[in-house]
């Protein structure tokens, strides 16, 4: 448990690819308080958690788990995971020299504790029926392949079929190269499903957390009726590694949420403690064409661990 918490801090924003140096880590106490990745203040776990892992002093948004996000964006106990058993078929039988993509996927599942780069399900939020998808940066950097695209698409279709609002929390390094053009096709697939959802006048709230690049940005992320980013989140077309490959340097502020707000691409930057309330407001405003209450209580079929809050795990 402690180790996991350290993992989480180690993977904090902007430090994802360079873990804290060991001497720093050793200085960290191993009981109930941790050093803020923004201001380096030592903070009590409980204070951080009560504030959805946003530093009460400097506002730094620490990375949170997919389960915490789901808890934040659904009514307690209402979330029922869908399609959690989907796995990639490795259509290209992709190997990098000796290492197969299949092995990489098993490793990713072990690392991230979830089976793909997206967790999807149905829930209610303030009583409003939603279809919810939350991406997982820890799983192959949130790279989108066939399964992630399929799960997003099914989440869109589920919203459409049931008359639910759609909420997607995106964080993605881009498209997953191991599945080649199949990955690219997910852009067309998800955009196509969204076209139908939106023609049916059902709302889509697109939330940008952490970093979101490439095919995710250039398909569903950009198509939200409302697009919300967390403070300090980054969103753009080419991720850092692609930019490196094509030898383009962007000024540091260019892909920040604040830049995108200024350039008219996103609607709002909402601090995480206010996010739930804001999404609820939009859902209520936009629920004209949703199908209402009776259907919102999900059956327990097809459920899994997704509805457990972190505190339930303790």
């Amino acid at each position, binding site marked *: 448990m402690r180790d996991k918490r350290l993992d989480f801090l180690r993977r904090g924003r902007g430090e994802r690819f360079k873990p804290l140096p060991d001497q720093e880590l050793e200085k960290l106490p191993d009981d109930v308080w941790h050093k803020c990745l923004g201001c380096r203040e030592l903070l009590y776990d409980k204070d951080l958690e009560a504030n959805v892992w946003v530093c009460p002093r400097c506002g730094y948004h620490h990375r949170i788990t997919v389960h915490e996000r789901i808890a934040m964006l659904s009514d307690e106990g209402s979330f029922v995971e869908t*399609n959690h058993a*989907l796995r990639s078929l490795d259509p290209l039988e992709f190997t990098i020299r000796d290492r197969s993509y299949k092995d990489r996927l098993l490793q990713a599942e072990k690392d991230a504790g979830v089976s793909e780069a997206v967790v999807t399900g149905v829930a209610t939020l303030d009583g409003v029926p939603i279809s919810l998808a939350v991406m997982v940066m820890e799983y192959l950097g949130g790279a989108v392949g066939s399964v992630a695209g399929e799960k997003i698409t099914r989440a869109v279709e589920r919203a459409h079929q049931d008359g639910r609002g759609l909420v997607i929390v995106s964080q993605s390094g881009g498209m997953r*190269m191991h599945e080649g*053009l199949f990955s690219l096709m997910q852009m*067309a697939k998800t955009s*196509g499903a969204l076209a139908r959802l939106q023609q049916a006048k059902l709302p889509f709230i697109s939330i940008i957390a952490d970093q979101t690049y490439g*095919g995710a940005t250039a398909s569903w992320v950009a198509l939200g009726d409302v697009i919300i980013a967390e403070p300090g989140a980054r969103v753009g*077309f080419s991720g850092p590694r*692609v930019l490196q490959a094509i030898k383009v340097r*962007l000024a540091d502020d260019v892909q920040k949420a604040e830049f995108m707000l200024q350039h008219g691409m996103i609607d709002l930057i909402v601090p995480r403690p206010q996010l739930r309330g804001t999404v609820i407001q939009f859902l209520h405003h936009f629920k004209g064409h949703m199908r209402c209450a009776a259907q919102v209580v999900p059956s327990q079929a097809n459920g899994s661990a997704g509805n457990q809050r972190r505190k339930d795990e303790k």
Partner: protein
Amino acid sequence: MNRLVSELEFEKGLSEIRSALEKLTKADPRKVPDLAAQRARLEAQYDQQLAAIYREIIPWNRVLISRHPQRPRFLDFAAVLFPDFIELHGDRRYGDDGAIVGGPATFQGRSVILIGEQKGRSTKENIMRNFGMPHPEGYRKAERLIRMAERFDMPIVTFVDTSGASALEEDEARGVSWAIAECLRTQAEIHVPIISVIIGEGMSGGAIAIAMGNRVLMLEHSIYSVIAPEACASQLWRDVAAAPEAATAMHVTAQQLLRLGLIDRIVPEPLGGAHRDPTTAALYLETALREEFSRISFEQFDWAQQRYERYRQFGQVTDTLSTTQKAPTG
């Protein structure tokens, strides 16, 4: 066939013959009495060796052909196939992008909308066309023309040839991701048929953005990929020299993608690639498009639905809880 084009790295064996041919071209026919015979012999040699080289072709070679500076571009094909094409300009919002060109034309007596990514050939033209890397306003112009096609019941033919959308600060500032996403959504919404042809490089989001065809064709030596093989190699192999390996592994060629069911048809190119004989290449493309058009039912078919289904099926997954390959929708 133009045998004097510059060779690609895997065609090096041709350069000696080509040099000899070049010399002959400059030779004075009065001083070399058997000029015609010499040329014929060299040409036969050239063609034989060319055929041998192309029998052994690997995916990486096609990557190189698809980028050959003399490879015909969209407007080269258009000049042959659509002589009455009228270029329309502008996104009505910000600018006119030189890297995406489009407008109405007639094909087989039917009015169509053409949209194509356009690389330049001269330095000046390349600057005007941003090396075929569209800015956001290019995709917004494309979207406007797609809506025009929808309004006036015109089928759309798109031509894909880009190393990727432009990704500089100005492109982020004007929302290149947004422009691409909206272009995709618009293609999903419309009801006229779209035929997309990958004619050169079809790289990443910048390519799929205008390639959401009901039918997707690829020229024999074109490529279509989620990312450039070099970038894939440097990221996954940590070694840019592994690009040929990455090209094979990612399945970027028309032949690989047809087998995978991701494209519908390969348009043959003349031996040695379209750049060695652009006119023949255009005629092959015309033949393919004629056949595609003859298969299109313009009156009653639900092209939006067919397009939805075509893209809906991509992405093979397994539901580990079920016995079928494809899980029922959640």
